[in-house]
């Protein structure tokens, strides 16, 4: 079933690592400007699912952005369509400066221009993260975990996304820093940015999300399937 207002349509997405099926025929659609929380226990396929959406891992099934097919195992295809990932553990470029990390967020659009012009093109992103201003020329790897998370968010915004996927953005961060991340999320969702937020903690996620979907044992939010899996587990134990 196609939702006319959907910006992201993932249907029957499966991810397999060798013999292990991490995600099984998961379907999800996101409406424009919606913030959806993808919750569930650790190791149940949430990251695999979003990595598949963003073209980072091989998948079966279809992902469409505004009706256009996003190629599997091709992150550039997702980026071109405006789908940007802020991955778990950030994956910054630690020896490069904060400035370089942020300007590389806009690599897909600015790769043929001079570095100073590319940074000028994305500089407005830094207004949202004033705490990074004194650290622009420091290596990203020398910053605190919270500051690095801000760099990861700034890098994502430099790509001028239409949809942002955040995978456990508060993992390992202090309470105060998590608050700051959630402030940013609230601000972005007010600006009609479409957000898919992966969180282990449903209470925290539902502070900003319009709705939540649960992934359990690689299966996405089909109550009957989830109940059947849980029942099977109880029986087995």
């Amino acid at each position, binding site marked *: 079933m196609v939702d006319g207002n959907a910006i992201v349509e993932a249907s029957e997405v499966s991810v397999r690592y060798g013999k292990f099926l991490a995600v099984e025929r998961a379907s999800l659609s996101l409406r424009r400007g919606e913030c959806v929380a993808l919750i569930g226990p650790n190791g149940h396929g949430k990251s695999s699912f979003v990595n598949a959406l*963003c073209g*980072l891992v091989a998948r079966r099934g279809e992902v469409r952005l505004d009706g256009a097919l996003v190629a599997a195992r091709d*992150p*550039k295809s997702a*980026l071109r369509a405006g789908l*940007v*990932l802020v*991955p778990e553990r*950030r*994956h*910054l*470029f*630690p*020896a*490069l400066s904060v400035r*370089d990390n942020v*300007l*590389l*967020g806009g*690599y*897909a659009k*600015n*790769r*043929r*221009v*001079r*570095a*100073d012009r*590319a940074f000028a093109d994305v500089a407005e992103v830094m207004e949202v993260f004033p705490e990074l201003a004194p650290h622009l020329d420091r290596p990203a790897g020398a910053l605190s975990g919270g500051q690095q998370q801000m760099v990861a968010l700034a*890098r994502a915004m430099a*790509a001028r996304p239409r949809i942002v996927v955040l995978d456990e953005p508060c993992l390992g961060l202090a309470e105060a820093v998590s608050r700051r991340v959630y402030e940013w999320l609230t601000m972005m969702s007010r600006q009609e940015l479409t957000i898919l937020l992966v969180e282990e903690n449903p209470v925290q996620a539902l502070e900003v999300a319009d709705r939540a979907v649960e992934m359990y044992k690689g299966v996405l939010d089909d109550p009957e399937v989830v109940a059947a899996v849980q029942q099977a587990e109880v029986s087995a134990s």
Partner: protein
Amino acid sequence: MSNFLNLLAAGVTAGAIYGVFAACIAIWFRVSNVLNLAIGDFAMLGVLGVAELSQVDHWNLAVSILVDLVGVGLLAWLFDWLVLHFALDRGQADHGIVTVFFYTFALSLGIEGVTLAVLGTDVRSAPAFWNGPALEVADFHVQRAGLLVIGLAIVVGILLWTYLRTTVSGRAASACGESVIGSRIVGIDAARYRRWLFVATAVLAALFGIVESPMNGFTYSSGPTISLLGVVAAGFAAFRRPGRAVVIGLALGIAEALIGGYVSTSYNDVILYAALFALIVFQPRVLGLSTVPT
């Protein structure tokens, strides 16, 4: 004093050569996290190829150089496509230092073996671009090929600096070696950067070999020594800083010339192995040797 200046000039010339090879190793390591131990063999292939085409087959020198450089570039491209692509882009395993070491070491051995079989053991050099006796200023003598080498090294250094410091593409090349996943997330094709920089550094090494060969002849086995010098100089620059690698290469060349002049040329190798020893003792982390078994 004039003896010192002449030794210094010889040292700067040799150092420029080491520096450029070190820079080639450093810039490619920066992108791929793999040491190019075949860089000296690309230089050797450049020299022996041009010598064969221009002196044995009597081809025009410019055509010989062009064909030779295209051939070296093609070989580098094929090696990346047939070996590195499968080893690095498709496997999910975390490659250890020993595994990674052997990719280009095997290439080096392969090039040496084929060159020995095809071209033999003779010492050869490419024809000089700028013929004539050494240039003299007072008591100061500089070989013409040496000046060309220094000039080319300066041009290459400026181009590399400009690329890495001022372009988004240069930043992206650095990012590839920092985080492969991070680079994929922002849309950088790390494999493409690795491939084209491997080809570019191979061609550059061949060109340098051709320019400097009138001063030092090449044989099929010249490659590993050049590679080792480059690796030592690049190692002191943590393998990731081409600029610092050039400076260390220059220092090695000058030290080698001064010790050769004032002590004995027999000690030239001592410089190389002392530097390698110092690298292992003081910079073991960059060689992947600092892991303590737990």
